């Protein structure tokens, strides 16, 4: 619940606040968004698998973003499109997480049904 409210506030802030991030950093921003999304899905997976831990989630959220951005920066300096690596890895992980989440949800659904039947 509080998560949803936070997300909503963030979206509103982004839409209506007139902050200027220089265009040169657009790649970094997109990479950061991608890693953050991955972390969020990872957290959802962990939550459904009952292994969720706040510290792990938050450190992953910021840590992954920082590392991805740093790699992209390094790639920029070396003329190597490192952001592609980040896009591939984190994109792949997002799909993986989705797969696991799907399985967990299906498991949960069947378990619920079985429990219903037992009662």
């Amino acid at each position: 619940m509080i998560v949803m409210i936070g997300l909503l506030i963030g979206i509103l802030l982004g839409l209506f606040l007139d902050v200027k991030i220089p265009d040169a950093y657009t790649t970094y921003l997109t990479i950061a968004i991608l890693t953050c999304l991955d972390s969020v899905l990872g957290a959802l997976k962990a939550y459904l698998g009952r292994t969720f831990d706040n510290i792990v989630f938050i450190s992953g959220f910021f840590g992954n973003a920082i590392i991805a951005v740093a790699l992209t920066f390094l790639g920029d300096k070396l003329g190597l499109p490192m952001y592609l690596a980040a896009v591939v890895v984190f994109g792949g992980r997002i799909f993986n997480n989705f797969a696991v989440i799907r399985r967990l949800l299906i498991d949960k659904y069947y378990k619920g049904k079985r429990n219903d039947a037992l009662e």
Partner: protein
Amino acid sequence: MKKNNRNMQWVLALVFVLLGFLMAYQYKQLQDPVKKLTVQETEDLFHEIEMLKEEKTALIENNNELTEELKSYEIAASSSNEANQLLKTELDHSRLLLGLVDVKGPGLTLSLKPTDPLLNPQTFSYLTDLELVYIINELKFAGAEAISINEKRIAIQTGIKSSSNNSYILINDEKISPREEIIIKAIGDKNKLNSAVAFQGAMSYNALEFYDIRFQPVDELFINRYEKPFSTSFIEEAR
């Protein structure tokens, strides 16, 4: 333990605020297709404009001071005898004719505003150097003694030329845009000027027919002076 959990929830909310902000910001950025310059470039340009503006004001001030000084020299020189005084009057008259001084007098203001291109999607075009030269010629033929376009004085060595595929028109090496309103001022016999412009078909030359043209005789007009030096690299007096 419970308190700790509470705190963690706030941190989580904060994290999601950040995520939402980033996504919304990026989305907004991509919705804005006109932006081509980076922020750095824009800042640089603004900075440059500011500097040039300052420089321009300083130079104009300098110019004014020097003109005043020159005037005082001339007055000092001409006050001594009548021949010199005559020379001074002659000099002032020449300056007036050449457009080297600010002038005022009755005349006509003419405003050219482009209409919406959607009204004539097939044929619409913006005006070019041709139309401006045509108007100047019409005004001069009707006896205009001083003319300016968007405060740029048309002097004896003024050239008018479209540039960059008519994205702007150069007058005295300064740009005016055919996409915005253009104001032309002319000092002369205001009735004569008015009838020249009002003459049937006079203001429908080429692209002028796509412009909203308004003109008005005025009792007192101010036209500023030609602000560039004349060049005399090639001409010399033939004896």
